[in-house]
């Protein structure tokens, strides 16, 4: 898929810095991501990929600079608005962040419950998304009893169940074999086709090369290149 440079940007970062104490996790990042783009963020371990995603959903605040998201300035957002901002995102975390005391079903349903969806609808949607990722049989299992790859698939299911505007995926296939990974990627492509903006952080250059989408390359917190292969 080829990037359209002048499409409306959904994410704009201007000279963004992120410091953790004396550690510079991100240094002077300026970039645009358009609506309905499919973009990779790559770079070696510790480059700042996860940090970049965190800034977008306000998991962390920027230390310096500005981020515009869908027209809103993230530094101006009040505490009470944060949950509503987050509902625009489908988030897949590197460490999954599933609730260990809740069943797979409840973990996924949570995303719909917070928006006040009807219980019947929730049932239907959760089951359907679980079928997509091939985990429909583990509806009532608890995350600690799942294998690494199974947990990752649940995390993906949770991210997409709410039909988000933007999917932020941090190494979404790191623990998956080639076949399962293909299923997940097909799912992302399907959402992309329906208009969702997709941002994937990964260290896997192979993956990026195969998909042929734009990739943003970070190194030690600095933007090295933003290239369409």
């Amino acid at each position, binding site marked *: 898929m080829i990037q359209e440079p002048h499409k409306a940007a959904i994410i704009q970062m201007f000279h963004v810095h992120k410091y953790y104490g004396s550690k510079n996790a991100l240094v002077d990042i300026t970039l645009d991501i358009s609506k309905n783009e499919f973009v990779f963020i790559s770079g070696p371990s510790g480059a700042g990929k996860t940090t970049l995603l965190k800034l977008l*959903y306000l*998991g962390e605040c920027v230390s310096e600079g500005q981020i515009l998201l869908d027209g809103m300035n993230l530094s101006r957002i009040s505490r*009470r608005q*944060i*949950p*509503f901002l*987050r*509902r625009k*995102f489908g*988030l897949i975390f590197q460490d999954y*962040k*599933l*609730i*260990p*005391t*809740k069943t797979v079903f*409840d973990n996924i349903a*949570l*995303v719909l*419950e*917070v*928006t006040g969806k009807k219980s019947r609808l929730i049932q239907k949607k959760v089951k359907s998304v679980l079928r997509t990722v091939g985990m429909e049989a583990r509806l009532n299992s608890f995350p600690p009893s799942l294998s690494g790859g199974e947990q990752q698939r649940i995390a993906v299911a*949770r991210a997409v169940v*709410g039909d988000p505007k933007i999917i932020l995926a941090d190494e979404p296939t790191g623990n998956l074999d080639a076949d399962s990974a293909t299923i997940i990627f097909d799912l992302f492509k399907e959402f992309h086709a329906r208009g969702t903006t997709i941002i994937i952080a990964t260290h896997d250059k192979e993956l990026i090369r195969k998909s042929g989408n734009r990739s943003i390359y970070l190194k030690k917190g600095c933007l090295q290149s933003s290239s369409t292969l």
Partner: protein
Amino acid sequence: MILSFFFKRAVQDILDNKVLNAITIFTITLSILIIGAFTLFFINTNDLMGAWEKNIRIMAYLKPTTPESGIQETEKKLKKITGVYNVRFISKKEALNRLKNQLKRQSSLLEDLNANPLPDAFEISLITQPRVWEKIENIARLVESIPSIDEVEYGQRWIEQFTNIFYLFKLTGYAMGGMFLMAAVLIIANTIRLVIYSRRSEIEIMRIVGATDSFIKAPFYIEGIIQGAFGSILGITILFLIFKYIFSNIAGEFSTHFFYIRFLPFAISGCTVVGGMFLGWFGSYLSLRQFLKL
């Protein structure tokens, strides 16, 4: 509808975190047990001392010259004094009989009297109130100021000490009850804080998938209230069973006719349950405030 949704979630939550909930409820039970036991102890000791205190009387002796009509007038005046509970007339004849009774063995002393030298008198009992010695003194002074009253007599030294110490006892009792209550509140809040602390990653995840603060808090509040209710009902029930057990075995021998040992009145028990529910909520409130700050 919304409430029933949160209620369902709270119940689900309790079932998902059985260990943590059991520990919280158990801690609330123990705290209620401590508070309840002390209240029980204090109420009964208070009753007991109150029963003795009732025996405090002021004797007001009339001038021998007082006419029949003056006696009734004095009685009316005495009854008007604030703090006076009851006034009883004791004729000189009755007084002599009482004295004979009191002296028992030595009553032979009084046998060969021809005239009764004792005066008529009023026995004044006081309203049961937290009493300080000064208050009794004030009343006595008022009584003495009535013209037809010749002399006033009230209590020996030990009664003075008794009323003062009783007042001190009550005061420290209330202070300690308050302290216990505060300690219990803090212990319960602590426990709930620990529970929420051990569930903080869960809370973080909820926030990150877009849950509003009230969505996260509501089930915790309901859980706290349920825990408080369970804990306090359990606490009071256990206290009652212990009470029954001890007093069916021991107290029988100690029943007296001017003092009955009683359990916490129904109103206090009810308040405790409501208080427990409030406590559960309050503990959750304090802890959540802390964890949801960022």
